[in-house]
């Protein structure tokens, strides 16, 4: 799990941006946005329906079919995992890793701390995405593409909190030779 350095992305930033933008346009032209954060809630809702049917029936969120059905977004999630895995294998970027360069630079403890931070971060991510009605893809990317009002406060909150937390958690920047390609 050694990290020799931050990997160089296969394409430069502008090509990457154009590519991602066109994928979003394609998604909106064919069906709807690419947000998959709802599907975490849908999976949990379905699980609760099986484990505690009475609770689920009276729950305002789970009983709402919009929040507990598997549909297009679920298949997007499946495709996302498949596509990312195949692309990583094809580009020889598939590698088992547990920590990041930034984490190793700022924290000398065992890698399990990174995993704990990952778990905590994951909880915050989905709790936040649920409250906001979408994650980075749904609220920020697709939101700005459609010029929706909700994208404005969401962007301010995400970048404000994200920059503050990153500054506190990752105080030491890795040296240039590790950061660059």
């Amino acid at each position, binding site marked *: 799990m050694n990290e020799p350095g931050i990997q160089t992305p296969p394409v430069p930033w502008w090509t990457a941006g154009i590519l991602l933008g066109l994928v979003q346009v394609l998604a909106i032209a064919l069906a709807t946005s690419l947000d998959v954060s709802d599907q975490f809630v849908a999976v949990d809702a379905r699980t609760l329906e099986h484990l505690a049917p009475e609770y689920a029936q009276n729950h305002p969120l789970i009983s709402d079919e919009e929040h507990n059905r598997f549909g297009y977004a679920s298949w997007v999630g499946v495709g996302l995992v498949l596509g990312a895995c195949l692309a990583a294998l094809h580009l020889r970027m598939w590698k088992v890793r547990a*920590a990041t360069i930034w984490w190793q630079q700022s924290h000398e403890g065992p890698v399990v701390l990174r995993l704990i931070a990952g778990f905590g971060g994951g909880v915050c991510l989905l709790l936040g995405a649920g409250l906001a009605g979408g994650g980075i893809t749904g609220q920020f990317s697709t939101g700005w593409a459609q010029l929706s009002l909700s994208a404005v406060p969401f962007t301010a909150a995400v970048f404000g909190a994200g920059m503050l937390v990153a500054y506190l958690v990752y105080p030491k920047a890795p040296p240039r030779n590790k950061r660059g390609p």
Partner: protein
Amino acid sequence: MAIPFVGIIIGAIFGASLVLTGLTDPDRIIGSLRLKDFHALRTVIVSVLVAMLGVWLLGLGGADHPDIKPAAILTVLIGGALVGIGLGLTGFSPTTGLACAASGRIDALVAVIGMFFGAHVYILTYPAIVPRLEKVLNYGQVTLPQLTGTSQIIWIAPVFAAGLVALVLTRRGGSGYSEPRAKTENLGLSEGIAAAGSPAIATDGLHAVSVFRLWKNSLFVVLVLALVCLQAIFWLTNTGQVQISRDDVSSISTGQTAAEEQPSGSATMPTRGPVLPALLPFDLTLKQITLVIHAVNTILVFACVLYCLTAYMALSVSIRNRLGGLTHISRTFYFSVLALILLLPWQIVLAPVGVGTIYTPHEMAKSCTTLAAGTYETVLFYLRFSGIWAAVCLVLTIAQWRSFRWTKTVLLKYEDTGRHIG
């Protein structure tokens, strides 16, 4: 059956794109949040701008499927802050977390498990908290143009400008590719090569490479902007946003009015009305856009010729100084020539056999106001105005991609030489 298939295909393309663009690397995300490495930020800005323009064009054609999230300001702010905390802690978003886990990251896998737990917490706390919070400052599913009662273009222009400003401001922070470039330009590599006494590699060649690269990239940006402008004008005209009278079409082609020209074949041809209601806050006439089309056409021809010449000069410098990357720069040159061939208005001299991306105002106005006879004619019409345009964009992108590979090869070669010397 269609929904799973479309979903999986779109998801697979999206997942592969995330890996390809480097957004699955949490170090890049953290680097952007710490304002040290702007690769991810610049990528996201460009993607948002492209998506915004694309969605706008889709909307003009009525082909979009909008998914506007409710603007409950308080819950969006709290939720956004929580997403920001998660992003700052892990370097993943829910989407990139899944893609990262699929590419072998154990920390991402743990984060995905955390996301399921977070979703569970959300479900458990929902009845007591969320409905109350959602009522505070809830504007509903509304867009900025709808809220202000203005046209979409009024908002697109400043957002696009802000995005460009952000790209300029983050230019020096490093995009991940800046390091070898900086080394070369800051004489580190040049000195290393000079110290090595390698006569085959001339330091002048390095300076030439950086000059040609700058010009080539600038010309590419100009070409892309001009092409987008040309296509936008076509769609504005095709969707009825530009006022075209029969007199306009006749006067541009012959300098006469339609009344003087009667009876002509075109006067009896069936015409079609505007496809969409007026979306622009101001009136746009054919005479106004004629000037723009002529300017854009001129810019396109000059920029593409210069692009070809720059690619040729870069190829020449590569050969003479043995800089390497000849395969890439040769292909850049041939693709740029191909783009020029596709761009030139061959219909003026070779009609009806040849046709090019560049169109004349009269040609476009006549085609856009004439009702197509059938499906075949409609397909030909869109192939002529959008198909060739897309082909030029593709060829230019390939040329630029190859030139990027050439630059990278040259710089890596110098870096390797310097390291070997060191």
